């Protein structure tokens, strides 16, 4: 899948990750997490679940710097033309701008919600907005950032739906080169 359109990536409030030399003991505990976000409830649930289960227990003051979370939101590329039944019609520039703005606002809203969740649990996080096909972008981001673990929600689609709609979590589980944690939405009987 070729993505020839320009990608925009902007890091959020926290800035770039600090690469400091670590002792082996610290390095053992330090995990770089990449959390893939979209508008669905599933990914927010995944974020909360990951924060609660992975980070909740070792809140030790000296290990504040130990775990880095990067929140990634991938925007699908907007096709600037519309296919009605007849010939191709190019959308007016105004429409394109409006849609781009809406997308940017959408992305900002998602990431600010996610950052808020992290802040509630006193976890530092940085944000990343990418454009393109979510599957590819997430895998690429994981490689570039040398993530230790990718956390991704799952919509819980059945086999047939997954074949038609595609599954980002499934694709990532197979193609990324680092461990993947797929968090499923809670089942009806929520047992602890």
């Amino acid at each position: 899948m070729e993505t020839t359109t320009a990608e925009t990536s902007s890091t959020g409030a926290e800035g770039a990750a600090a690469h400091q030399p670590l002792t082996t003991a610290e390095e053992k505990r330090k995990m770089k997490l990449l959390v893939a976000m979209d508008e669905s409830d599933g990914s927010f649930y995944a974020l909360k679940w990951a924060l609660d289960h992975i980070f909740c227990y070792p809140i030790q003051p000296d290990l504040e710097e130990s775990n880095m979370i990067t929140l990634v939101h991938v925007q699908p590329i907007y096709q600037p033309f519309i296919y009605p039944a007849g010939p191709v019609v190019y959308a007016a520039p105004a429409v394109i701008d409006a849609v781009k703005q809406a997308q940017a606002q959408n992305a900002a809203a998602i990431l600010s919600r996610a950052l808020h969740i992290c802040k509630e649990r006193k976890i530092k996080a940085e944000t990343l907005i990418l454009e393109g096909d979510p599957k590819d972008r997430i895998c690429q981001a994981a490689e570039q950032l040398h993530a230790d673990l990718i956390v991704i929600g799952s919509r819980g689609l059945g086999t047939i739906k997954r074949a038609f709609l595609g599954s980002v979590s499934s694709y990532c589980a197979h193609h990324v080169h680092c461990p993947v944690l797929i968090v499923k939405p809670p089942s009806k009987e929520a047992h602890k």
Partner: protein
Amino acid sequence: MEDKQVMVLALDESDHSFYALDWILTHFFGSSSNNSFKLIIIHAKTSPVSVMGFGGPGSTDVLHLVETDLKKTAEKVISKAKDVCSSRSVTDVQYEVIDGDARNVLCDAVEQFHASILALGSHGYGAFKRAVLGSVSDYCCHHARCSVMIVKKQKPKQKP
């Protein structure tokens, strides 16, 4: 919170599984006091009938041999796992050998132990191999009722 979360880790005799065990022990059971998870290590012992199919003459003897071999493999896997865990001083581990196909065994184990995470290694097969050989990690991803963590061997990074 005294209530420990349960993590089920699936092991077979491949290197990938032991890499996964290693990775998990490093990141989730590392150093100091952090034993926030109770680890249950499961080895699924396939039944000899499924391995052999329905054989021809003399199959009963072969069945017995295959069964013994599978049992030996299971013991080897568990003892190796015990060694790895004790060398990392992780003591709160439960070991289980369960008969059956790995996929079903793991999903059932998740239910039985009320696990919150299922961790497994991955052979890293491509799409074709996966279609032909089947993928336990694939199946578990989709059918387990809890979060699934698939640990892969990292490709050697090309550091600048």
